[in-house]
């Protein structure tokens, strides 16, 4: 029996409204097999070959090559029974009504040549007429006809064996092929009242139900009660147990005043200040030796950081072009180094100032710093402790940080980021290998106020101070 099928302009993607036949690969009267290329169609974006979804004969080519036609327009008539009369073909063409959009019959090739191919419209099956006396719902019949489903094999689930839409849908999709998971061990029901699932979860995780008190009616233990006692409350899970999400609610901490100021200043700094970074690595051994000796001699407990602050302060005094603040179009240069020391306090990052550190002895710096840190931890730092620094030292070395880039603390012109001391192999003068403790420093510089060479010279002096710490006591 003749089965005439319309071949229409496919719709590839929601933006496609029309297409152009580039070339026909089949001629009128020719047979083609499933998978043969029928034609190529150009759209505004791609040219795609259209392969046949079924084998048939070409009865009529309606649209010539080069013709630009809207989506859904009739391009050709195929006959997969190959015995329709010319009159039937004419009648088919006369009766053809283009469906609104997406009436592509054969689907385009899966591998489109252009990467920008839109998602392709799925090709509906050829509509077949189902002649049946079996009870079937109108929607089910429509679906079966559209999809060409043989309803003879479908058992109707409706009243009196009526075939429903769901029955046809299920027939199209076929049976579920997933393997059943099987039975599980049934926990004994005892005198403790627990819901079946609670009992099962408890058995699975070896939780003693008698150790729980249920929140359900008459103290019944529910799933929730067992889950609350699960050992993997943090979601990490015991071996074999399924991963379970736990509530992850934010602990909302509003900004306090200090953090507000810090946030605002650092945001401004990072956005407005043209930072550049200079890195240098210093042999810390002489300074570490000196620290031991100085602490003994001076009877203080100066930290490595105190020595760094001292070296920075002395270097700043020698390089006042780095010891600056930037106010609008003015650079304020200072003779003495008021070094801000970044301290992590309970309320956030604070930067109290060791004033005129370049004039202090190491024990004085140590005492001043100690006092400031104590005040920071107690939250008793005053405005006068924080206002007006000319340079900042920020040290994360004690956390094992190798090096980092700090954000400039405005209106200052530079900040020194201090990394941890690492024992590294170095080449000795005679070509051998020795080990020394090295500290990496990164100077973040405001390029508006300080040039690269200026910053580099400062670092050179700084390095020299630390590597020859006698100079700090000169």
């Amino acid at each position, binding site marked *: 029996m003749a089965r005439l099928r319309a071949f229409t302009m496919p719709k590839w993607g929601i933006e496609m409204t029309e297409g152009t036949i580039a070339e026909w690969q089949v001629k009128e009267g020719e047979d083609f097999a499933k998978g043969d290329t029928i034609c190529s169609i150009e759209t505004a974006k791609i040219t795609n070959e259209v392969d046949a979804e079924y084998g048939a004969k070409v009865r009529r080519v309606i649209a010539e090559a080069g013709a630009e036609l809207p989506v859904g327009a009739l391009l050709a008539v195929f006959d997969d029974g190959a015995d329709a009369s010319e009159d039937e073909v004419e009648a088919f063409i006369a009766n053809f009504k283009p469906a609104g959009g997406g009436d592509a019959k054969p689907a385009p090739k899966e591998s489109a040549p252009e990467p920008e191919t839109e998602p392709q419209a799925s090709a509906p099956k050829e509509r077949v007429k189902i002649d049946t006396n079996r009870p079937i719902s109108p929607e089910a019949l429509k679906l079966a006809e559209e999809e060409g489903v043989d309803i003879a094999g479908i058992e109707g689930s409706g009243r009196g064996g009526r075939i429903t839409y769901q029955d046809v849908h299920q027939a199209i999709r076929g049976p579920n092929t997933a393997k059943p998971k*099987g*039975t*599980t061990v*049934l926990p004994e*029901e005892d*005198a403790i009242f627990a*819901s079946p699932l609670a009992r099962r979860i408890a058995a699975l995780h070896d939780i003693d139900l008698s150790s729980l008190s249920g929140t359900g*009616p*008459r103290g019944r233990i529910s799933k929730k009660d067992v889950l609350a006692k699960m050992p993997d409350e943090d979601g990490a899970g015991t071996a074999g147990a399924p991963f379970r999400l736990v509530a992850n609610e934010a602990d909302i901490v509003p900004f306090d005043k200090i953090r507000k100021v810090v946030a605002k200043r650092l945001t401004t700094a990072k956005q407005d200040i043209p930072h550049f970074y200079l890195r240098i690595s210093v042999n810390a051994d002489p300074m570490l030796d000196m620290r031991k000796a100085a602490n003994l001699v001076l009877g203080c407990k100066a930290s490595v950081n105190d020595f760094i602050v001292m070296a920075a302060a002395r270097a700043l005094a020698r390089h006042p072009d780095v010891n600056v603040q930037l106010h609008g179009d003015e650079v304020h240069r200072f003779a003495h180094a008021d070094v801000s020391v970044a301290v992590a306090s309970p309320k956030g990052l604070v930067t109290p100032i060791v004033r005129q550190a370049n004039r202090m002895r190491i024990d004085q710096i140590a005492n001043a710093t100690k006092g400031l840190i104590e005040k920071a931890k107690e939250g008793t730092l005053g405005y006068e402790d924080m206002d007006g620094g000319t340079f900042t030292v920020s040290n994360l070395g004690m956390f094992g940080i190798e090096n980092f880039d700090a954000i400039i603390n405005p209106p200052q012109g530079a900040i020194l980021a201090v990394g941890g001391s690492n024992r590294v192999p170095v080449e000795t003068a005679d070509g051998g290998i020795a080990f020394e403790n090295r500290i990496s420093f990164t100077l973040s510089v405001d390029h508006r106020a300080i040039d690269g060479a200026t910053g580099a010279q400062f670092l050179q002096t700084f390095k020299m101070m630390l590597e020859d710490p006698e100079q700090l006591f000169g």
Partner: protein
Amino acid sequence: MAKMVYRDAVRKTIFQEMERDENVVVLGEDIVGGMGTAGGPEAIGGIWSTSTGFYDAFGPDRVIDTPISESAIVGAAGGLALTGKRPIAELMFADFIGVSLDQIWNQIAKFRYMFGGKSKCPAIIRMVYGAGFNAAAQHSQSVHQILTGMPGLKVVMPSTPGDVVGLLREAIREDDPVIFLEHKALYGLSGEVSDDPDFTIPFAHARLARAGEDVTIVATGMMVGLAEKTADTLAEDGIGCDVIDLRTTSPLDEEAVLDSVEATGRLVVVDEAPPRCSLATDIVALASNKAFASLKAPPQMVTAPHTPVPFARELESAYLPDPGKIEAAVRKALDYR
């Protein structure tokens, strides 16, 4: 643990409770002996023999033969309950609740509510229900869907002798009216029962009769055994079924059903009653309503057809759910995608 048949579990539990609490009284047709007998060796203790020996032990004040009038039996039970007794009324066949519906539905179910909690009505109406005995359309029905739909009643459907003991004792000690439904076909069922004289099973506490990961089968009373049998057959094919014995249809252990459906994603409800407005539709609605996202297949219902219970044996067996029908429903749920 002692072995006991379902019928004896009913009798012994009531007997023990009557010994324990003198307010417990029993009443019903022929529960003494019928035919005008006044107890003694010829007393049959009701046609189901669930009160044999009661009359001799407790006397005429506590074991009361009634006329063949369900409305009188239930009405008297309601009155006894309101005046401080704990009556246990026996209806020979649940099918005859129709004539006592006013007493059940409009009276005992509502006393506590309408009197603002100032009265309580600790009445138990025991009813024998169910098909499979070729007892025809007026002696074979499952009436739980009617009673479950009545607020104020607690509806209990035990499936094992052990559950009879725990649930009946709970019912007798309960201050609200309880409909206690015993299936004819279960009376000869043997099983273990607790020896603890205070063992009770709270209402709305379902039992997991089988544990599996693929399908949840929900059943009550007589249907539980069929579901268990089906689960055992399917287990041979590697298909695991959770079989949930609801025990009480009101209050309902929603948690047990929903938890299981969430785990398996597939639900089959087995119910001996016809499907319209039934327990089966109620459970399916529950799952659709509260576990929709977990469902991997349309919930299936294995119920009797919407027709009176047939008298002819062949038709009656075709009418009732059986393991074959349950297995087909399980497989249908599993095949769905």
